[in-house]
């Protein structure tokens, strides 16, 4: 379903992503973890077709993203970490705009789908309001509606829980699980180890542009040689012991 072959991105001499190889099966939720600046967002942006790779291939649904960008994008839904949207459009207008970009005709079926998604993400009452009056969390949920509108086979998500309240976060986790059951592959980067432990079938940890570990939570536990929760595994693998043992500053 998703295949990354020797994926590399070089920014002004810096190898932000350095020869990543990954293969993710259909219907899986794949968690992409790593410390700040590890290359998570760069990888995700390349997979969404927003950034071009310096080297390597991104194969989604047996199509090469570089050779057939439109074909790949048609079956991908992308949720970025920051929900930049068109503030002067109403929520419904924004979703119709997205529908147009994905060649969905304006039929009663589309209107129904839009209403359904807005209700699902608890934005039903806000559909006619201009997006500029939405909160950050509402914008984030609207972007998720947009990503699911064309019923993508692959969902690429960058930090999905940022800006969401606990209720919103729960809702999103459930939606991802439902999507996976329906056969959608979810590729998700996150800082939240709890989220990764709860929803992901498989996890990869990236550091310095390299995948340093990959597998299920229990496989990673074995690889790290530590017991306990995902946080300890993560800190061990990324050598973040210093942070883990850090003490608060003493007050004067």
């Amino acid at each position: 379903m998703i295949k990354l072959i020797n994926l590399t991105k070089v920014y002004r001499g810096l190898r932000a992503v350095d020869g990543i190889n990954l293969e993710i099966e259909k219907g899986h939720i794949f968690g992409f973890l790593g410390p700040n600046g590890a290359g998570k967002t760069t990888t995700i942006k390349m997979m969404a077709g927003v950034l071009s790779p310096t080297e390597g291939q991104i194969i989604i649904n047996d199509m090469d993203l570089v050779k057939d960008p439109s074909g790949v994008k048609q079956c991908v839904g992308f949720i970025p970490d920051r929900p930049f949207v068109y503030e002067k459009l109403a929520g419904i207008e924004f979703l119709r705009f997205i529908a147009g970009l994905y060649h969905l005709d304006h039929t009663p079926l589309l209107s129904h789908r839009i209403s359904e998604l807005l209700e699902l993400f608890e934005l039903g009452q806000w559909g006619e309001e201009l997006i500029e009056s939405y909160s950050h969390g509402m914008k984030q949920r609207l972007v998720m509606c947009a990503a699911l509108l064309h019923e993508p086979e692959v969902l690429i998500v960058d930090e999905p829980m940022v800006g969401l309240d606990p209720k919103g976060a729960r809702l999103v986790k459930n939606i991802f699980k439902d999507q996976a059951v329906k056969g959608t592959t979810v590729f998700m980067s996150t800082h939240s180890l709890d989220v990764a432990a709860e929803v992901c079938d498989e996890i990869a940890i990236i550091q310095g542009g390299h995948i340093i570990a990959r597998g299920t939570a229990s496989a990673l536990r074995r690889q790290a040689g530590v017991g306990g929760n995902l946080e300890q595994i993560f800190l061990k693998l990324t050598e973040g012991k210093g942070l883990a043992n850090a003490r608060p500053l003493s007050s004067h």
Partner: protein
Amino acid sequence: MQDLYLLIKPRFLGFRNRMARSDRRTKKRAFVMGGLGLFFCLGLFIVSCRVLIHFQSAEVIGDLLARQLLSMIFLTFFSLLIFSHIITALSNLYISKDLELCHSTPVVLEEVFISRAVYTLMDSSWMLIIFGLPIFMAYAYVYGAGPGFYFTLLHMSLSMAMIAGGIGILITMVLVYVFPAHRTRDIIMLLSVVMLVGLYFLFRFLRPERLVDPDAYFTIMQYMSALKMPQSPYIPTQWISDALWAVLTGKGGEDYLFYIMLTWTTAGAIAVISVWVARAIYFEGLSKSQEAKKRRAGGKRALDLLVELIKKPFGVDLGAIIAKDIRTFFRDNTQWSQLLLLGALVVVYVYNFSVLPLDKSPIRLDFLQNELAFLNMGLAGFVLAAVSARFVFPAVSAEGEAYWIVRSSPLRLKRYLWGKYLFFLAPMLILAEVLIIGTNYMLEVTRFMMFLSSITMFFMVFGILALGIGFGALYPNFKYENIAQVATGFGGVLYMIVSSIFIGAVIVLEAGPVYILFMANLRGNTISLFQWLFIIVSFSAVLVINITAIFKPIKMGLKALREYE
């Protein structure tokens, strides 16, 4: 005071760091922009010198004209400074992203306000240096000014900026305080544009050119009194120009100190009043402007109808982009209000042709009319390029930080760019033909010139538009605060230069053949084979330039957008 210094410091540190750490590309851009600025200043200085020397050649009235011009220049700058302060005060006092941080610290409100007022003064007053300095230097050069003039110019300009700044900031604070929350920004932007259009009309319809035409007055006494009449003794610009004139010519020295005291005490008083008013209403206004309220999409039915009508021929995906662009344009007051400026520009452009004193020219009327019609093609082309710089050039940047949506969608970038191009084509063609046919009609040009101008303009629009879209994609700015700023960046300036060269090249290539055809028609001469060859080569070159201007920039823009990171 310590806190005030700290609050102002980040601006200078940021500037220093930008300078010190800029890459080669940024340095190159700064060098090009600096060079262009210097070139502009030099040109303005030369033109100003010529005007003043021309005035001096007229006995008795020469000095009166120069003095009147000086006070008009100060009045214009003063009005523009107030306008500019209203806009930048809104940004610095109410919108800036670091305000939250500043207001959350224990620094007193007045110091935050003063630091923002200083930012506003700096941001708004640079145009006085770029546009004013060459003119004032021309006065100094022509009148052989001493060091006193430069000193007076320096501190009086500062006092004028402080007065205009104080007025602008006070207006902004009151407006934010009075108008409903969340819409304040839009309303202020709209009011400012309306004010600017009003000023523009007022200035143009006063017909300042009549001041240099004594024939427009019944008697010479009437003319002299029109020149001598001060604008108003209560306007600070009058005090400033009188003080400068006194030090420039050595006349009226007894009032010099009085005007200086008057100006500086006014500046000081306005600064103090601003701080008082800020203490009373600034924070409440700031707090109010952050309140988010539900805002329904206004004028929905009319807009939906317009959108449906326009997007039809473009297909589903491009139609979606166009529908979004139209809706955003009409809902954003900072965008649609620019149409008012465009309207004012067109009206004044056409009006200028209606008041041309053609009958006073020593050149044959029919010859002059057609020569002017030819010049008009260049001017109209330039107006179109300016309009395109404001509306077409920012078309790609208009996606803003939501550009990721277009980039991650299946819409091909090539289709996206050409879609934007086609969207602007019809309105630009209509505008071009209205401009050229309207003004040619007023000039009463021959049928041949009318035909040639209309056709030339028609084809030139394709190139001007493609240059706008292409350069807009080549130099996109997705992180703007106000879309109007996009056109004033490096890419916008470069676009204006390249499109001016394009317009100039077309006009120059057509000039020769048109002259041959026009003279043959006028004198009934036959055109030689060599002349026909020259005509064909020239028009073919025009065709080649047009085709290049259409395809090359879009291709370059497409490549740049594909590589944009």
